[in-house]
């Protein structure tokens, strides 16, 4: 690494102008696209009012990319796309072509590089995820490894549009839920199951007690006299539901626990307004063990949900819409997952989730 300070020092330049990296065909037809067609999984064709056609080839990525790989993408863009490409909101890479004859050669080269093409329409797209053990202190699990293991198992549904509708999977490694997994068709969430262990020395050095006390959603933290006249805190363990927010504001509230950390699985959320309104994912499996490097229990559960959904849902039904139709009891029956006391909400709006009708399927 070398350090070469540049002059003058620029600040607040902001991102590149929004049209700086747009291919000419996009600049020409900006805002006047007419319709699109899918030529194959991962291959879209957008047709402009002008008649121009823009071809998109979408490749899956592991999101964590080295500069070597970025340079490979750049080479491909130069070779096939006049140097233009983009990434998607789900961390896929998209090559933007104007010559349909280049689609196949590009796809072949992608195949050689091990880059799968797909993720469009009623396929499983890339899994949105977070840092995990790769970069975050708060992680109750790794994210990248989970995603890799899942996508290995589900890749055929990425390369084939063979599901009733779009299926969005996301992983978050702690309850902060970076990436907003809470509205996914299937969400994998890292969880702790132990109250924080208070590290008194660190606490008195690094944390403000009032902020810390205020950070607890359930009021489980209360100030107590610490060593040397300084204030410390104690945790009312009965009231703690292991959210880890105290750890976010104070490193002395250690949450990580190799034995008790693990995963929970949530289903039926969605974001789009298509048909039904956006909604949160709902608890499906309260706990599975953290079993790196391949998390077989998680893979099995997710595969089960995908398979059952694929077999039972009607065209256009997202996971949550499908469950609306068949009912939660049948979801648990079909997946074989156990319905437990944990599935019953007991937070603020819990009462709203109680079954307030006799609408029951037998």
């Amino acid at each position, binding site marked *: *690494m070398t350090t070469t*300070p*540049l002059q003058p*020092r620029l600040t*607040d330049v*902001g*991102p590149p*102008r*929004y049209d700086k*990296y747009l291919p000419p065909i*996009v600049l020409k037809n900006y*805002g006047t*696209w*007419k*319709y699109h*067609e899918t030529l194959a999984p991962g291959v879209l064709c*957008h047709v402009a009012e002008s008649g121009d056609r823009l071809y998109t080839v979408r490749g899956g*990525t*592991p999101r*964590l*990319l*080295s*500069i070597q*790989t*970025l340079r490979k*993408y*750049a080479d491909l863009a130069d070779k096939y796309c006049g140097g*233009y*490409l*983009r*990434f998607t*909101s789900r*961390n896929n890479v998209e090559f933007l072509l104007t010559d349909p004859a280049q689609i196949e050669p590009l796809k072949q080269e992608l195949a050689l590089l*091990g880059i799968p093409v797909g993720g469009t329409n009623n396929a499983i797209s890339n899994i949105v995820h977070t840092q*995990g*053990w*790769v*970069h975050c*202190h708060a992680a109750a699990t790794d994210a990248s490894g989970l995603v*890799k293991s899942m996508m290995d198992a589900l*890749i055929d549904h990425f390369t084939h549009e063979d599901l009733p509708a779009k299926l969005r999977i996301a992983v978050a490694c702690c309850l902060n839920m970076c*990436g*907003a997994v*809470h*509205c996914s068709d299937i969400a994998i969430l890292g969880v702790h199951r132990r109250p924080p262990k208070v590290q008194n020395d660190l606490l008195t050095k690094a944390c403000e007690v009032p*902020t810390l006390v205020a950070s607890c959603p359930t009021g489980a933290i209360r100030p107590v006299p610490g060593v040397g006249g300084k204030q410390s805190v104690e945790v009312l363990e009965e009231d703690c539901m292991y*959210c880890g*927010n105290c750890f976010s504001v104070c490193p002395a509230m250690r949450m990580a626990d*190799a034995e008790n950390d693990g995963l929970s699985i949530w289903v039926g959320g969605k*974001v*789009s*307004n*298509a*048909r039904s309104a*956006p909604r949160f994912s709902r608890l499906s499996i309260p706990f599975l063990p953290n079993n*790196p*490097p*391949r998390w077989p229990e998680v893979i099995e559960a997710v595969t089960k949900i995908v398979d059952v959904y694929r077999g039972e849902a009607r065209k*256009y039904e997202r996971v949550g819409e499908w469950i609306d139709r068949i009912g939660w009891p049948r979801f648990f029956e079909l997946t074989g997952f156990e319905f437990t006391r944990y599935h019953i909400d007991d937070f*603020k709006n819990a009462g709203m989730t109680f079954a307030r009708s006799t609408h029951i399927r037998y």
Partner: protein
Amino acid sequence: MADADEGVKPANGKPETKLLDELEKGPWPSFVTEIKSAQGVTGGAEDLLGQLELSYEDKVSHWKHGGLVGVLGYGGGVIGRYSDVGEQFPKVAHFHTLRVNQPAGWFYTSEALRTISDIWERHGSGLTNMHGSTGDMILLGTTTDHLEATFQELTHAGFDLGGSGSAVRTPSCCVGMARCEWACFDAMKLCYDLTMAYQDELHRPALPYKFKIKCSACPNDCVAAIARADLSVIGTWKDDIRIDQAEVANYATAGVDIQKDICANCPTRCMDWNGKELNIKNRDCVRCMHCINAMPKALRPGVEKGAVILIGAKAPILQGALLSSVLIPFVAADELLDTLKELIQRIWDFWDEYGTNRERIGELIQRVGLAAFLDGIGLDPAPEMVSAPRDNPYIYYQPAKEDEA
């Protein structure tokens, strides 16, 4: 805890990664392979691999909280990170990330990608996230002394840092008008304009907590704005869906069951199909996009376009997750920027006055009540803001109070 020295640091200097190696198998591209491929660049990737293998053995993270690290004059854009096994993996003992504000819609040229790669080869681990969940390009791991240099090279190359801390966070948007026929406003331009308007608020945290802005140009919401943006701008239209009956018939011929697939899936059942013509009672249409999604050649949004402004999404902590909710039911496309700038200012003024530390705007609204919030920012209540009026009779009637005063 496993004996780290045995498990992950053999004589040859390169860590042994038995567990991670498992993740190089299988058809999906491997992040482990990516980390390994950056091993040449700096020692960062190498030690990252070692520490990660240790985490895979221990089943805990080996990162510690970051302190305040950053670049001169900015309060955000860098996430400080330290290893708790730094003696063992000295090259990741400090391993901070930079959040680099992505170009709108995540468009790049090969040139731009190479520029970034070169800078990051000189100054960092050679590892990135394309992209982070908020939308930034994430430069994954460097040391404090490289931060300023990286920053300066970035700004000279036309890039700047994104947000972190109690600040405006890097706005993001869908591909919109650049490639999508359904865009109801220019999401990329609006996103860019807002980002430029709030450079100061983005780089120098001065808000009660983070404030995220996301723009999706139609109700499909391809950046998931409604699920995770404090301010969500989502495109829609006011007039009638445009229908090409001939194309509807083509879809029918091609096997689409118009009655079952299209009409029966309409949330308000406002469509009629008589076998020849598709009839939409636009008065009852809630612009959900389903019929348009399903038959893009036959149906299109109307021409009176604009957006719904929604407020308050966030992840669960502290008071439970929130979805954004309607604040202004419709703003015409060409009035969006001005309207938003004025609105955001009023929202921030209110937040500044009444928000507590680390209270997202959505939580503040929950706490003080939507009506009080509307009063505070000077908006009239509208029935579009609620899914239904209140069902409980606990009404704080004001006239009575006013009389008394």
